[in-house]
């Protein structure tokens, strides 16, 4: 059986950093998956993704999320944004590792790019769980992915792995 779930790259931070970037992503897979586990240097920061070196000036992103914090559920959306938030309502922790998975579908096809994000951030007494669908309105193949923090750093030890998934 051919291998269809292959590690492309892994980054484990030796010191705190504001972002992790996967670049030169090969076009040989069907879908991508990122698994990121780590704490933050500060609580309450926003984590997000961008593709292909786009910046804060971009308006190509939108997303819709559903979130729960243990006592209330909520849903919201953003359009014409410059990023896709990983934790729309969730706090980040300096001591408890959060976990997120990001599935990027058909990242080389001639279509806009959708992704599905899971965020798990329970902290034994507080926390959040989220699911988000994101859209990047570009038909350009995704060749790089930025995992960034707004106002904080990924803590030392944070690990992110990029996998490639083949349909055949």
């Amino acid at each position, binding site marked *: 059986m051919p291998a269809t779930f292959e590690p492309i790259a892994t980054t484990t931070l030796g010191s705190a950093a504001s972002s992790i970037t996967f670049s030169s992503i090969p076009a040989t897979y069907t879908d991508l998956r990122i698994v990121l586990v780590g704490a933050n240097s500060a609580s309450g920061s926003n984590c997000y993704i961008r593709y292909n070196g786009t910046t804060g000036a971009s308006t190509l992103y939108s997303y819709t999320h559903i979130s729960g914090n243990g006592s209330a559920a909520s849903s919201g959306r953003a359009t014409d944004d410059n990023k896709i938030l990983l934790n729309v309502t969730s706090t980040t922790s300096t001591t408890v590792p959060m976990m997120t998975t990001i599935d990027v579908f058909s990242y080389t096809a001639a279509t806009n790019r959708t992704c599905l994000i*899971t965020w798990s951030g329970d902290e034994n007494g507080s926390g959040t*769980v989220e*699911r988000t669908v994101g859209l990047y309105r570009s038909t350009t193949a995704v060749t790089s992915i930025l995992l960034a923090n707004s106002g904080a750093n990924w803590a030392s030890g944070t690990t992110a792995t990029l*996998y490639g998934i083949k349909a055949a």
Partner: protein
Amino acid sequence: MANTYVLIASNTLSSSAASVTFSSIPNTYTDLVLRTSARSTRSGIDDGFAVVLSSNTNTIYSHTSINGTGTAVQSDYNYNMSNFYAGHIFGINGNTTTSSTFSSGEFYIPMYASSNKKQLSFVGANETNATAVQIGAAALFWNSTSAITSISLSSLFGGDLMSGSSFFLYGIKNS
């Protein structure tokens, strides 16, 4: 390149059982994925998983979850527990719901052999073509730095896991 999404073990029940345990999990993978299809003998429309890791029943388990019924959503949590309440109303079908229907679920367990505290995720649903159905997701926190060497699942409300329930444990390597 070697396949990095590997079936470690599976268990499809041929008769009802109080629990299912995957033991002696090798530490040679980076992450684990546990996929479930389950129904319990509980006299009710729904059930959930009670999950114990590495036979540790200290009060180091907590969760935050969200679930929806098709008409409403809610969120809840439990903390300082002696096991995970995983999908407590959406992880398993109870035995008074539509016959021959089984819930679907997936646990993702990253860095299970590391010396870090463990944050897991669970997503599940018990669609039954009835009004009382649930879909949900949970963040599960295991406040331990020990490696996860076994996973035990049972009915949260004391039923047995029914014949036909199936469980598949996969290992994923990042290198």
